[in-house]
């Protein structure tokens, strides 16, 4: 999807001006205090900015007054964030001054392509596992160049729990044979037998 065309609908008027500004924006990326986990193999992260619907965010936000007050947004953004159980809100991860960037808990600017640095601020254990390959997904190869999908590739940052979905079809039985009735399992949970015993 070409995000540019969609952005036109949102903000036709100021597109040209802001586009120019966004391109002129200096590389504000400073060295982070977090320098990765020692010993973790090198990797690259699959870029994701191109897939973001509203990016560059500053296109719109440049024209708005930054408002640091914690509130529920009544705009085109997700009103409810199912993340952090009320302990975080938009500006916990998004930078107030420069909307084209995320920020860490230490207020360091982070590019959208490196969202994992933000996630890792709270989810340090997962983040470490992801660095070393015990969490997340590597692209295509097990050997050679290591490219990782970002956290936000699988998890919606505003509602990170993976949603249930339909499973693929159950296994068939071999050609020529019929599927047999399901196994009637006896109750296996120990607590159930205790409950039954007490009821009697």
């Amino acid at each position, binding site marked *: 999807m070409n995000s540019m065309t969609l952005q036109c609908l949102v903000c036709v008027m100021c597109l040209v001006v802001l586009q120019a500004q966004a391109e002129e924006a200096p590389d504000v990326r400073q060295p982070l205090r977090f320098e990765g986990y020692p010993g973790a193999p090198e990797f690259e992260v699959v870029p994701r900015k191109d897939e973001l619907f509203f990016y560059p965010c500053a296109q719109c936000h440049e024209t708005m007054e930054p408002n640091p007050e914690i509130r529920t947004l009544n705009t085109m953004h997700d009103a409810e964030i199912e993340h952090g159980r009320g302990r975080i809100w938009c500006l916990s991860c998004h930078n107030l001054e420069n909307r084209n960037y995320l920020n860490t808990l230490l207020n360091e600017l982070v590019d959208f392509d490196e969202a994992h640095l933000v996630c890792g601020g709270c989810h340090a254990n*997962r983040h470490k596992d992801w660095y070393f390959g*015990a*969490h997340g997904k590597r692209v*295509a190869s*097990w050997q050679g160049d290591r490219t990782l999908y970002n956290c936000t590739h699988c998890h919606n940052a505003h509602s990170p729990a993976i949603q249930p979905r339909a499973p*693929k*079809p159950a296994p068939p039985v071999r050609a020529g044979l019929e599927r047999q009735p399901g196994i009637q399992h006896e109750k296996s*949970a120990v607590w159930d037998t205790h409950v039954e015993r007490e009821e009697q």
Partner: protein
Amino acid sequence: MSNETGSGNDGDKFDQARRNFLRGIGMGTAAAVAQPAWGGQTFQDTFADFFQKDYRRMSAEEIEAALERIERKAQARYDVEIECQNTPPQPGVVYGYAINISRCKGYRDCVHACVKENNLGRDSQMQYIRVLELDQGDFNLEHSDHYYEPETVPVEGKHYLPVQCMQCDDPPCVKACPVEATWMEPDGIVVVDYDWCIGCRYCMAACPYWARHFNWTVPEIPAEEMNTNTHYLGNRPRPRGVVEKCHFCIHRTRKGQQPACMEACPTGSRIFGNLLDPDSEIRYVLANKQVFRLKEDLGTEPKFWYYSD
């Protein structure tokens, strides 16, 4: 046709003599029978198939000839041009697999990706991977449901356990085979020579993981769904009446690619890599996670671990 020819023997004098002899017969019959016969095969191919030696005793040229016959057979049977390779094992590599069972949601994406990737018979209905659904607090496989079909997974109160070939380091199936048609390759993958297996199914009785499957009938694969990237020891079209099993996608992994099940997993539960590389992802999991292996007490040394986080 691949130039990467693997571990075929150079052959001793006996082999050489026998080969020359067979070649002589082959030439003669080729002249006599030029037109395809014998179920779309030339008499020459049928003859060569029948007398084909087992993989580990074939010379490089014999393997090459066998690969060409396999390609011709696929053309005749499925009308598909496949490429059958013989990619050798990488030195210094032994494969290991780990599954994060706290991530697995039971989608079965791996199962169906495997069916397509490995040209498993759609009609004979074989699958290398079984995903078991178990009650939380229960790990007794006899209580597992193999055929769960709820609206959505994961189901509340259930957990999921994918099982496939564990590529045991002391594989009971290899010991069982009366004709040495199955063995462990240097990279730790237990493979089957489908052209050498006699179909006695003793290995199926010996496997504690139900990882071995039999071609009760000729595997039917829709031509348009045929994966044309194949390997002699892997996903080439199989004949009827022989045993097959998961081979860690040997045609992919030996070239550095992930196995199809891993690539298909939407949850990233599957970790695959080189056990001999201390910096590999699989070794990180083994060193830093609480891992277990299924039926470890049987002493088969599976190279397939489960962990949770």
